[in-house]
């Protein structure tokens, strides 16, 4: 009897120790994530309901912040402008990725000489810091920079083109910067899609007498759908919250004349003001804008999460 009792006590304490250790293992990660990521996300809901410049007392105003952004002309016009330009920004990038990316991935899938080397070279800009890429390309396309020097020398342009200085071209140029930086990522994703096409399908199409182009069009492209959707969703989520290039080159005012203003810069400007010495900060409004942006990208983001979940 005493033996038995002791055994059960030992067993119990093993369980207890197991539980304690499990909790200890879980704590650091959960704590880190909740304090600096999860709780701020939840606090968006609360902060979006207060009027608060970031310091001093918070004043509860209900849905006023949302009403301000959606109806007050001063904020509404900025919001619409930022949103539309964000859509243009996104469209240019995704167009580049799908057209140039697919083309290059297709060529890389052929038996070309040196395709491994090309693959590495095409990927080269991707791991570089956005800050370095932004300044490098900024200097490169500057009216007095190398690109314009070459263009005028070869007679392709009469006068230097102010790519980033003019309202008409600055947003597109920014989108091209992004595409230049991230193209390798699109190429690799599409290429792995092409290489995953089942060889027996391709062989069957060849036996049926399909030409190369017909095989690619009817066998390879349909299978690339998921890769295209994936790239689109990733880029969508990214460009609607990340405005690094514009903050770096143009600053929070997103010049010239706000022609490069997208949601990320609008949000930053609302929270911290346009210039360093500004007093025009509004954390409540910024939270409302953040929440609205989150709502916009939510469908795409949920799709991405579900896809990941299915994989796990």
């Amino acid at each position, binding site marked *: 009897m005493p033996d038995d009792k002791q055994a059960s006590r030992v067993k119990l304490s*093993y369980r207890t120790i197991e539980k304690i*250790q*499990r909790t200890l*293992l879980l704590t650091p*990660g*959960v704590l*880190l*994530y909740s304090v*600096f*990521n*999860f*709780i*701020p996300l939840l*606090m968006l809901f*609360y*902060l979006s309901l207060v009027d608060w410049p970031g310091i001093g007392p918070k004043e509860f105003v209900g849905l006023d912040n949302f009403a301000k952004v959606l109806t007050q002309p001063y904020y509404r016009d900025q919001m619409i402008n930022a949103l539309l330009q964000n859509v243009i920004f996104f469209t240019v990038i995704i167009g580049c990725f799908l057209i*140039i990316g697919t083309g*290059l991935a297709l*060529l890389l899938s*052929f*038996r*070309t*000489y040196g395709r491994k080397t090309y693959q590495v*070279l*095409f*990927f080269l800009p991707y*791991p570089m*810091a956005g*800050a370095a890429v932004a*300044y490098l390309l900024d*200097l490169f396309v500057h009216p007095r*920079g*190398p690109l314009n*020097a*070459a263009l005028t020398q070869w007679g392709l342009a009469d006068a230097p083109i102010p790519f980033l200085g003019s309202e008409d071209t600055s947003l597109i140029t920014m989108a091209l910067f992004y595409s*230049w930086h991230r193209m390798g*990522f699109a190429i*690799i*994703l599409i290429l792995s899609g092409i290489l995953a096409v089942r060889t027996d399908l*391709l*062989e069957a199409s*060849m036996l049926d007498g399909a030409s190369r182009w017909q095989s690619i069009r009817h066998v390879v492209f349909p299978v690339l759908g998921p890769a295209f959707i994936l790239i689109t969703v*990733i880029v969508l989520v*990214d460009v609607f*919250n990340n405005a*690094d290039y514009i*903050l*770096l080159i143009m600053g929070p005012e997103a010049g010239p004349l706000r022609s490069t203003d997208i949601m990320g810069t609008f949000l930053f400007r609302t*929270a911290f003001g346009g210039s360093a010495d500004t007093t025009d900060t509004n*954390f*409540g409004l910024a*939270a409302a804008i*953040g929440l609205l942006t*989150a709502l916009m990208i*939510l469908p795409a*983001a*949920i799709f991405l*999460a579900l896809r*990941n979940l299915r994989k*796990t």
Partner: protein
Amino acid sequence: MDKIFKLNKREQLLVQFIMLAWVAVVLIPFGAAVLNALKPNVGQVFREPFGLPDPWTWSNFAKAWVNANFAQYFANSTIIAVSCVVLVTFCASTTAFVLARMPFKGSTFIFICFLFGVIIPIRLALAPLFDIVRSLGLLDSLLGVILVQSASMMPVSVFILVSFMKGISTELEEAAKMDGALPFTLYWRIIFPLMRPAIATIALLTFVQAWNEYFLPLIFLQSEANYPLTLGLQRFNQQFSIQWHMMFAGILIMMGPTILAFMLASKQFIAGLTQGGVKE
């Protein structure tokens, strides 16, 4: 098969031409940076941007390094990136271990909370995040930036690790449990070694992300002594905006380590970064 992927001579020539054209698009900005970073003055940069430097002025790099305080920025970037890697690999692997292998009441809820972080980018919550960091007294400190950047990498890392762990068999753990091994031992002796490939992926991902991050340090750091390279480069840009040769040198100093690491381990980079991108 061969008929589709094999090319005849003329096609090969055409494909090579297109490939080289894109290589030029990728490499010419880098090449222009190298050529112009070695020029003695800005006049030469403007006169003939693609001409060879005369004389080759290697001292630009030393000058940029010293004048712009790059040593300080470099040290800060290293501290931030290395701390993030340590913190994220440890916290994400322990969390993923418990969530994947020791489910309990509420573990699904915790997993869904992490999922939430994968869905909504933390940048959208910059106002509440700023508030929390300030009330903890972590504003303008490297520790604050390290914690925030690590936390932002947690959801993706936990996801990658949980999905990796679902794919490895539980036999070893079961055996160890039979022998009375407790979770700490299981984690350290069995799970951590088994997860090494996935942990290497998230370590690389975290390092690159933390090293390249611009936005979060921009919000949380004010004093120049704490600047990482990304913010330092911005300061440098304001300081040397007219002296382009110095600007190019500064950009190359910043890119140097990344290019070197990429050349040494391009395969791991491509695999790791695309995997991280897919999971984001």
